């Protein structure tokens, strides 16, 4: 049994990554082959030929959208049904497992679990990725660490102070407590920093000088999406005058303790400033590299931990601990044959931490 929740939406690919060639990507310990049909609709099938399990992604896609396995020549149509084998007359009974997909706002979402349960309304709002008032950069970074470590990294941004001191972190982050909210399985937090020193990234990105107000509102949409809403403003000017940014992370379990770390960084100001876009993209990748290095170092320690010693936790871990619980509960529900991802309810604040 996979240790990953499968009944839920994961970011499977960015739209631009998938075309008329075959692309393999492991998702929740399953090999998946992505491609587009002639009508441009995107398809994802299990990347194992039903004949002798050869990866279909090593095969060919023809102009009609027929997928051919390059080992013994099984061919599959756009719906995944086998339509023939090489030049033989008998048509084998075989079909490919196809995954529910949604392509929206430049992202391809995949539901690796029970197709019956796939529910589009559970997708987070990503309209800002497609909003003319916004601009963004995006990509995906390979991470050799388990999904949960990335999730906890994002739900506990106090680490910015220590891991990213030259870019987005400074003492104010760790010093400011968070409010945690829980909404069904979703976990949110917010941190309001007012009258603080501007971290270098925001000084350069927004042309601000200290003191600034900086707000972080994080949302974890289990099992695999985290969205951070960032607002930065000169102290005293509140919303809506501030600079708005959003960061989306698709945390998609790959194979074993590896994770696809999808990211998109958007802003709603100076959207035509390409230089700023380049600067922000470089910064984003630099910050993510600091996280990747840390998480891979941490992964080794978890993977080799003989166990028996408890972790220590503090109040700022609350959002991450709640996120961890959400995932564990979804997994438990799934193992009892219930839907993993559950619907929305009205968010309500719980306690300050």
């Amino acid at each position, binding site marked *: 049994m996979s240790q990953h929740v499968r009944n839920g939406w994961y970011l499977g690919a960015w739209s631009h990554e998938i075309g008329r060639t075959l692309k393999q990507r492991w998702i929740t310990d399953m090999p998946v082959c992505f491609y587009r049909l002639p009508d441009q609709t995107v398809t994802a099938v299990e990347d194992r030929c039903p004949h002798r399990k050869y990866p279909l992604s090593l095969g060919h896609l023809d102009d009609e959208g027929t997928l051919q396995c390059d080992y013994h020549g099984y061919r599959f149509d756009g719906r995944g049904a086998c339509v023939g084998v090489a030049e033989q007359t008998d048509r084998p009974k075989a079909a490919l497992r196809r995954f529910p997909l949604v392509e929206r706002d430049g992202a391809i979402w995949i539901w690796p679990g029970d197709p019956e349960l796939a529910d589009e309304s559970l997708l987070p709002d990503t309209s800002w990725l497609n909003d003319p008032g916004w601009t963004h950069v995006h990509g995906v970074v390979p991470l050799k660490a388990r999904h949960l470590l990335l999730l906890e990294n994002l739900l506990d941004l106090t680490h910015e102070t220590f891991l990213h001191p030259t870019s987005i972190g400074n003492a104010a982050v760790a010093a400011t407590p968070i409010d945690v909210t829980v909404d069904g399985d979703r976990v949110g937090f917010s941190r309001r920093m007012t009258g603080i020193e501007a971290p270098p990234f925001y000084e350069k990105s927004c042309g601000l000088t200290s003191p600034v107000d900086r707000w972080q509102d994080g949302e974890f949409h289990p099992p695999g999406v985290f969205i951070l809403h960032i607002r930065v403003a000169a102290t005293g000017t509140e919303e809506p005058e501030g600079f708005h940014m959003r960061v989306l992370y698709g945390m998609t379990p790959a194979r074993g303790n590896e994770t696809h770390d999808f990211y998109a960084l958007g802003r709603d100001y100076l959207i035509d400033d390409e230089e700023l876009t380049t600067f922000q993209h470089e910064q984003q990748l630099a910050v993510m590299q600091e996280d990747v290095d840390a998480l891979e170092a941490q992964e080794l320690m978890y993977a080799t931990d003989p166990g028996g010693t*408890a*972790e*220590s*936790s*503090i109040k700022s*871990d*609350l959002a991450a*601990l*709640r996120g961890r619980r959400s995932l564990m509960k979804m997994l438990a529900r799934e193992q009892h044959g219930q839907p993993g991802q559950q619907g929305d309810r009205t968010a309500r604040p719980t306690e300050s931490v």
Partner: protein
Amino acid sequence: MTDPSAAVLDTLTTTEAGTASRHEAGFDGTLVVLSRRNVAAGVVSLELGPRSGEGEGGGEGEGEPLPAWRPGAHIDVVLPTGITRQYSLCGPAGHTSRWRIAVLREPDGRGGSQWIHDNVHEGTELRVRGPRNNFPLRPAARYLFVGGGIGITPLLPMIAEAEAAGADWSLLYGGRTHASMAFLPELEPYGERVDVRPQDQHGLPDLAGFLGDPDPSALVYCCGPAGLIDAVEARCASWPAGSLNVERFAAVTGQQPVGGENNPPIEVELRASGMTLTVPPQLSVLKAVEHAGVPVLSSCEEGICGSCETAVIEGEIDHRDSLLTEDERAAGDTMLICVSRARGGRLVLDL
């Protein structure tokens, strides 16, 4: 040795998941005080028995027999003031015609022991429940008993049993002064096995010398004030797991940190281990369970990390943690035992 200040005893206990700890139907009714004796400065012993049956021509204590019990058992005495107190049975084990308890006058308590000292005489009727045993004596070749003050009470029947079984045993009995130490005459016949250490003459008892090196063949039983138990626990840290068995008589004094109305003592049944603990106001359920020798994970002890999460089978939870969501709280089937308590005085945990 500090003042055992434990007359008003909220017993809290500790044992390995013991066979003898019980829940079986006990007695719940009225017993009459058959005798009252002063057994030390500030300590009275009471013998309780059923009122003699009508027409049985009966002398005292010849009514229906009381339930049998084993060393370490205690009974609840429900006072007319509404206070319930636990007292160890300290007469001959298994005695079913009368039960003996000893009560230390606790001037700083909430009045239970004072009420008994001032109002209970021969012939007084008291509401009694029990017995229950959270401190059972397990078989061993050798026993080391450590008693402090009134904490001698559960040890007396244990000693009798150890002696009858031919075990190698010894007792270190500490108290404030010789005069404050109860039951010395009953211990005298055991001679060298008993080391009586009033603090005003000998200072603090020499636990290191008494306990010696870890001995896998020995069990340590300790009852008395918290300071003594803590010291014995520290000494026994390197002993094999399960060697040490303690019963805490936590004094209910004016110094409870969060006590009072908000934090009444609660009764916690550990269903899987088959024991029931009384958790005094100043102790967390987690600590109580740990003292009872039941292994539980914990880390933060502040209701944050969730490692002590425990399934609740029955009882209404008073959630005091930071981690659980409102839904989880409302579901009422899980609690973080390091901080949360009970409304309604009783919980059944899946431990």
